[in-house]
Structures are given as structure tokens and as C-alpha cells.
């Protein structure tokens, strides 16, 4: 505990006192001009704010992308909920996002706990496990497409261990294709989640765990009562980002299945792309995009509520 307490005054001392500078300085200190902000504000304003607002506007029209359009109220949304294929894409998206959140966080935290300290190979293993994160999801998906192929490594392995009965064309099965997409997504996210949790674990002082162990707390008890509360900010970040990425999934679907077989792996993002750019239904695509955005916002806010911590994140 003394170590943490010793660190606080040092940090405070390093903190500059803004008022003092202004008093003692001979002239007003020049901190740049306000108009330096203009290019960034304009770029972000047009590419994010203006486009999002007009996207929400087109969601209530039947615009095809060219020519004139009519207001059709909430017809687009009614149509979404009356089309089984689109409802399927909605449940697929939710299922993928929740599976993505749960599996990548559970596996990621296990790796983080194992590689936090003591292990001799921890640095090299961290580097290797993080590696998939930096690669393009498209490239990674192509590798996995081969793994799931009928004459691919997965079926070969099943055959070698005597499970020939399980051999099948994984991506061609409507029941299993979604699980394959999820596997690829989780595989690529584990390293990121692990690193987020490692950053959190680094803030847990070993002395605290030691003291708890001396008081007779077992491994599980120490994890529940010390580690878990202290890495709360990491949990909030890792789960929120996983959920957002999961809801937006597009690349893996495009590369692995193209939405098939029989629309079994369509997600909201892949449907938006199809409706808008293949079928030229801008208004309808915008309505789906508005739905996806609303989902992301609702989930993000709910997530923040659930995982909120008493201490400020990154304070």
C-alpha cells in the first residue's frame, strides 16, 4: 500500500499550476489560435454529423439514390419487420454480437490472467496472441474459409481422431455457418481483449493480493474480491467495444459466406450493403442503418450503465 500512496504526491507535484504561469509570465502565454480548429471541425462535421443527420432523414423516404423521392413515414420500418429475411438478419446480428462479447472476453481474460506475471514465456506469448488483431479481417477470413472447407484441416482433424461422423461442409450448413463466422470474429478479437485486461491487471498492486492471501483468501476469492473490482474500467472498455464491433460485423460475412447459405448468415450491415448498393434502395437501406445505429447506441448506453465504475476510467 505504501507504494501506491508514495506515488500520489509525486503525480500532484508534476501537475502544472495553470494560474501561476499566467501571473508570473511577462506576457500572455501564446497557446495557438482558435482558428487552428476549423479544418478538423469542418471535416468531422461534414463526414460524420451532416451525413448522419441526412441518413436519418432518408430513412423515412423511398429514395433510390437518384431523382426525386417521397416521404413514406415509417413504411420502411414496417417493411423491415414484415420481411422474414431481414428479421433473420436482425437476430443473427444480435446473436453474433452477444456471442462475440461473451466468448472473446472470457477467453481474453483467461489469457490475460495467465500471462499477467510469473510465466517465463509471457512476453513472446502476448506478442503472438495479439498478432491476429493487426491483420485485415478479410485476409483472416480467407484462411478460415479453407479451414472450414470440406477437404480442409477441420474435417481432416476430425477424421484423424475418429470423429468421421462430424465431417461436413461447415460453411454450407445453415445451422453451423453462423457459428463459423462467430469463431473467426472471436479468434481475431482475443488478443485485443487480452491486452485491455493486461493493462487493467497492471494496476492491481501485488501487495494487495499478497495481503489477502495471508488472510486466507483462495485464488477464486482473490479474483472475485480484488482483481475483478480493480479491473472494472478494462471490463467496461473491452465489453463495450466488443459489442459495438459485433453489431457492425460485415467483413467476415462478406469473405466467408456472402450472407449465405440461404441467408443464414446475413447481418444488418451486410443487408444494408445489399439493399443499398445492389438493389439501389437508398431509403430502405437508410432505414436499416438507422435501426442498426439505434441498436448500437442503446446497447452502448446500457453497457456503460451496467459496467460503470465508481472511479473515473483512466483517471
Amino acid at each position, binding site marked *: 500500500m505504501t507504494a501506491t500512496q508514495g506515488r500520489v504526491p509525486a503525480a500532484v507535484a508534476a501537475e502544472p499550476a495553470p494560474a501561476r504561469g499566467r501571473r508570473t509570465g511577462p506576457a500572455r502565454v501564446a497557446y495557438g489560435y482558435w482558428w487552428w480548429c476549423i479544418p*478538423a471541425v469542418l471535416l468531422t462535421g461534414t463526414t460524420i454529423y451532416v451525413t448522419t443527420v441526412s441518413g436519418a432523414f432518408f430513412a423515412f423516404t423511398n429514395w433510390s439514390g437518384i431523382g426525386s423521392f417521397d416521404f413514406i413515414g415509417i413504411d420502411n420500418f414496417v417493411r423491415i419487420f414484415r420481411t422474414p429475411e431481414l428479421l433473420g438478419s436482425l437476430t443473427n446480428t444480435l446473436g453474433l454480437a452477444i456471442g462475440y462479447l461473451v466468448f472473446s472476453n472470457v477467453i481474453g481474460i483467461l489469457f490475460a490472467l495467465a500471462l499477467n506475471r510469473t510465466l517465463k514465456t509471457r512476453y513472446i506469448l502476448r506478442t503472438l496472441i495479439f498478432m491476429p488483431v493487426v491483420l485485415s479481417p478479410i485476409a483472416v477470413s480467407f484462411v478460415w474459409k479453407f479451414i472450414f472447407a470440406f477437404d480442409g484441416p477441420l474435417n481432416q482433424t476430425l477424421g484423424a481422431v475418429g470423429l468421421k461422423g462430424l465431417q461436413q461442409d461447415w460453411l454450407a450448413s445453415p445451422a453451423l455457418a453462423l457459428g463459423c463466422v462467430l469463431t473467426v470474429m472471436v479468434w481475431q478479437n482475443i488478443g485485443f481483449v487480452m491486452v485491455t485486461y493486461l493493462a487493467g491487471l497492471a494496476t492491481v498492486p501485488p501487495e494487495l493480493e499478497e495481503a489477502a492471501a495471508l488472510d486466507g483468501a483462495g485464488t477464486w476469492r482473490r479474483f472475485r474480491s480484488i482483481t475483478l473490482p480493480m479491473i472494472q474500467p478494462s471490463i467496461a472498455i473491452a465489453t463495450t467495444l466488443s459489442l459495438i464491433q459485433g453489431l457492425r460485423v460485415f467483413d467476415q460475412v462478406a469473405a466467408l459466406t456472402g450472407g449465405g447459405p440461404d441467408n443464414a448468415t446475413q447481418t444488418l450491415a451486410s443487408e444494408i450493403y445489399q439493399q443499398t448498393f445492389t438493389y439501389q434502395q437508398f431509403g430502405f437501406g437508410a432505414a436499416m442503418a438507422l435501426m442498426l445505429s439505434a441498436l448500437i447506441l442503446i446497447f452502448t448506453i446500457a453497457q456503460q450503465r451496467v459496467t460503470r465504475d465508481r472511479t473515473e476510467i483512466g483517471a
Partner: protein
Amino acid sequence: MFRYTRATLVIEIVTIIAAIVMLLPFWILLVTAFKTGDQVLKSSAFALPGQPTLQNFVTLLSPASSSSGNIFAGLGTSLLITGGTILCLIALGSITAYVLSRTTRKWGNRTYYLFLIAIILPTQLGTLPLYIGARNLGLVGNPIGMILIYSGQLLPLSVFLYTGFFRRLPREYEEAATIDGANRLQVFARVVFPLMSPATGTVAILAGLICWNDFFTALIFLNGTEWQTLPVVMYNYVGSLVSQWNLIFAVVIVSMIPILAFYVFAQKRFIQGYAGGLKS
């Protein structure tokens, strides 16, 4: 406590096995890319190629082949767009964050919140109107348009990371420079700019990876034009190959090499960029 006991050894072995299982796809990727099409069908996917061949890479990249032009063009376009975006984000993001973090006026904080909210705002909804707008301005299928779009979308992240950095940077440096007679531009260019390289590294790595690996935006804005980025080129090329995995994996490896080479040299910065960038 936390000594290396027998239990630790068991954990270490289990973790290594788990990591090996997790990294198997890389092994499959590597061995398959050096096999002939015939060997891929006949040998186990895990087996080393009997006689390693470079034929796949030759087929792919030799000037005579039909694909090499596209692949090199894709590589060039990806470099150009990613590089341009990073420069834009560093130049605009740093000065914006600097002014916003140093001003004591109200508008500074309000503008900062504008950027913060933009980080959370989902981009899907804006993509369609952005496409229409860019099309009307002639910016679709155009690398400059792409750089502007990526910059606009990633500036909030850049401003956020730089602001976190400048808020921790003591003002004494700038005060000293001002006393020595430097003007505002000089203070920023000569004093602040050299100090901010850690933040610049984080911005470059995070935003660079997002740009380089982006598929959705690149597919919409660049597919079918002469300025396709590498992921789009790869997607189209693989679509034209029917399960010729040896060739597909050669393309995949070519597309991964630039990033992996970078990762091997700067893996600490990559990992810190992700962990530290999120914390600040």
C-alpha cells in the same frame, strides 16, 4: 509470493498449448502457400510441403501474370491512402487538440465534446449520404476523396488521443519559449511538436491499422475503380479463384507481409498503442 511453483509450470504448459492451437491457422497459411495445387489436394493441411515451391508467388506477382498489376496497384493505393490519412490526422488532430486542451474558454470544451460524441456515433447511418455527397463532388474512386473521408471519420479519435496527451503535458515549456520571444506558431512547431511524438505514434498506429485494413468503406467507394485498396483487390481476386487455396494463400500472405513486418519491429508500440490509447 508469486514464485514459480509446480502449479505455475502446469499453467505455463496449458497456456502454451492453447496459444499453439490458436496460432495453427498461421501454420496452415504458411505451409499451404508453398504447395502446388496438386499437393494441397493430396497432402494433409498441416503437413510441410514435400518440395516447397515459389510457383504461387511467381504466378501472382511476375510481371507477365494478369494479377500482378492489380496487386501492386492495390499495394500502392493502400500505402498512398493510409499514409495520406495518417499525415492529415497528425497535422489536423494535433493542432486542434492542442488549442482545445489549452484554451480556458467555454467553446473549447464544447468543441471537444463534439469530437467525443462523434467517436461513439455509429458510422453506418452516414455512409449512404456520404457516398451520395462524395459522388456529387467527384470524390468517389479518388484517393484524395478517400483520404478526406477517412480523415473526417478518424479525426475524433485523433483529437481524443492528442487531447489526453496535451492535458498531461506541463505548460512550463511553452511559457519558457514565450518568454524567450517565440510566437504561437514557433511555440507549437519548435517546442510542442517534438514533445508529442508518443501521442503521434499511437495515432499513427491505431488510425493506420484501421485505414489499411478497412474493407467496408473501401468496397463502397473504390470497388470497380482504378484506385482499389489491397483488401478490395484481394476480395475480387479471391472471388475469381475457385478454391485454389495455394494461390489464395499466396495473396493473403502478400497482403499480410507489410503489416506483420511492421508489427515485428514495433510490436511493443502496437500493443501499448492499443492499451494506452484506450486508457488515456
